[in-house]
C-alpha cells in the first residue's frame, strides 16, 4: 500500500511540475491554458491521495472546468496566438529566472533540513469526506458561506460594469 502511494505521489508531482514549466515556457496562450489544466488535474490527484475527495471534485469542476474555460473563452475572443505575443527582454528573463531560482533554493534548503517533521496521513481519516465537510460548512461556517454569495453577486456586477462598452 505504501509503495503504491509513494509512486503515485512521485508521478503526480512530476506531472504537476513538468506541466507548470511547460505552461510558463510555451509561446501560445492557448497551449499555456491547456498545460495549466494538466497541472490542475495533477493537483486534484494529490487531493485524492490525501483523501480530500470533496476538494478534488471541486478543484476539477471549478478550476479545470469553469475558470479555465473562462480563460480559454477570453483568449479565443481576442484571437491571440504566438505571433501576437509581446517581445521578451532577454536580460529581464535571465534576472527573473535567477531570482526565482534563488528563492526556491533558499526556501527548499530551509524546509528540507527541518528536524521534527510529521508524516501526512494518506488514504485515511474522514476530514475530507463530503459528509464531514458539509456538516462543518453548514454549522460553523454558514455565515461566511452566505457572505461568499454576496461576494459572487458583487463580482458579477463588477465584471459587467467594467466590461460594458461606454
Amino acid at each position, binding site marked *: 500500500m505504501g509503495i503504491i502511494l509513494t509512486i503515485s505521489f512521485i508521478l503526480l508531482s512530476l506531472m504537476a511540475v513538468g506541466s507548470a514549466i511547460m*505552461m510558463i515556457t510555451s509561446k501560445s496562450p492557448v497551449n499555456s491554458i491547456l498545460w495549466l489544466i494538466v497541472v490542475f488535474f495533477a493537483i486534484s490527484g494529490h*487531493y485524492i491521495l490525501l483523501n480530500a475527495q470533496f476538494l478534488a471534485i471541486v478543484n476539477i469542476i471549478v478550476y479545470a472546468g469553469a475558470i479555465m474555460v473562462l480563460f480559454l473563452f477570453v483568449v479565443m*475572443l481576442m484571437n491571440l496566438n504566438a505571433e501576437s505575443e509581446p517581445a521578451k527582454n532577454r536580460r529581464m528573463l535571465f534576472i527573473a529566472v535567477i531570482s*526565482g531560482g534563488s528563492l526556491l533554493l533558499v526556501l527548499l534548503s530551509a524546509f528540507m533540513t527541518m528536524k521534527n517533521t510529521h508524516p501526512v496521513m494518506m488514504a485515511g481519516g474522514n*476530514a475530507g469526506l463530503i459528509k464531514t465537510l458539509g456538516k462543518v460548512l453548514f454549522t460553523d461556517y454558514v455565515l461566511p458561506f452566505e457572505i461568499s454569495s454576496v461576494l459572487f453577486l458583487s463580482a458579477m456586477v463588477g465584471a459587467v460594469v467594467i466590461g460594458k462598452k461606454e
Partner: protein
Amino acid sequence: MDIKYYIALSLTLFSIGIVGVLTRRNAIVVFMCVELMLNAVNLLLVAFSNMHAASTAAKALPTFASDAQIFVFFIMIVAAAEVSVGLSIIVMLYRNTHSIDVNFLNRLKN
C-alpha cells in the same frame, strides 16, 4: 509520506508561478501564474490538514481537521470571483490598446 515532500512540491510550484509572473508580459499568462501560486498554497493547506488529522487533538474533536479544507474551499470561491473581474479588466485593456502586454496597463488611467 512526510510533510516536507509536500512542502517541497508546493514551493516548487509557487516558485514556477513567481518566475512566470516575472518573465511573461502576456497579461493572461501572468494571471494564470497567479492561479498556479494559489493552487500551490491550497495543496499545502490540504497536506497540513491531513498531517493534523493524525494528531490526538484531531481525534478528540471530529471536525477539527476539516477547518483547513473549508479554508481551501473559500480560497477557491474568492479565486473564482477574482478571475471574473480580472478577465474583464484584461478584456478592457485589449479593447483600449489592442494588445495584452502588461506594460500597457498604465494606459487604462485617464
